[in-house]
């Protein structure tokens, strides 16, 4: 069993950061609402407040990790231009998608949207985390600001969802491949022999 370095980075970008962020988003938004926005907010203890702060900071790290690893590690491999006379487009996902009318939309709509909209997620969640850390339980007293923070957090979730959906579909149609190969289970195979 083996994996290439490019596939591993795509996994780290998509699952390690992106999917974990999406999972964390649902919990984070619910907690923000429950703690500060619901008509009868649950008591926010100091311990709970610290937990939510750490949770939101983790979300911020995941969101920035997703966009930065996507833009500066995976995307350059995706958009690489094949040299003249290249025998195969398999190592050039953008070129591969654009070579067929049945797949060009995954680039022209999917990637073109994903590469920009995904950046709304870290911007929004960084703001939400800052406001919660700064105000904590006092945010209950700022109804309009609290609503705005929740709206930004929702948009962050939607933006990450769009990016995640198109990322998965693009990688299904034209996976980022190549680079050094890492053996994952060489020892197991050797033991079996």
């Amino acid at each position: 069993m083996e994996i290439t370095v490019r596939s591993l980075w795509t996994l780290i970008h998509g699952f390690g950061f992106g999917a974990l962020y999406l999972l964390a988003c649902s919990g984070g938004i619910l907690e923000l609402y429950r703690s500060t926005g619901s008509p009868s907010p649950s008591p926010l203890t100091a311990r709970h407040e610290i937990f939510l702060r750490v949770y939101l900071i983790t979300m911020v790290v995941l969101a920035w990790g997703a966009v930065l690893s996507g833009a500066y590690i995976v995307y350059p491999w995706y958009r690489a231009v094949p040299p003249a006379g290249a025998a195969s487009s398999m190592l050039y996902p953008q070129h591969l998608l654009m070579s067929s009318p049945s797949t060009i939309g995954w680039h022209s709509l999917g990637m073109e949207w994903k590469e920009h909209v995904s950046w709304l997620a870290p911007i929004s969640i960084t703001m939400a985390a800052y406001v919660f850390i700064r105000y904590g339980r006092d945010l209950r007293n700022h109804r309009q600001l609290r609503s705005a923070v929740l709206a930004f957090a929702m948009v962050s979730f939607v933006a990450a969802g769009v990016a995640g959906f198109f990322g998965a579909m693009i990688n299904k149609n034209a996976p980022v491949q190549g680079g050094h190969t890492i053996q994952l289970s060489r020892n197991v195979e050797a033991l079996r022999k």
Partner: protein
Amino acid sequence: MNASVETAPVNTASPATLTNGSAAAAILAAGIGSFALGVLAVAGDKSALLKGWFTFYKPTGPLSGVTTSAVVVWLVCWGALQWRWRKSTVSAGRISALALVLLALGLILTFPPIADLL
């Protein structure tokens, strides 16, 4: 920023122990940053000249400059608004509404079919 928003009435449902200026600054700056992202994405797509300018990091292409510039706009606005409003009570409703409109515009502008119409 309009100075009048700093003196407008605020939510008085229950007493707040912190002024709302810091939160309002963060929220409005996030809205401005989101809008800047949408505008710069369209600009970078439409203009060959800007496409070249925005290529801060060649392997990533114009995306590197578009997103870096939007993040810089966001952080600079945040810093400036925070410095101005950190001890103020501002009109939370108007600022939140403005921020949400900017966020919505930013979201719409990143959608390629909309950007293609411009």
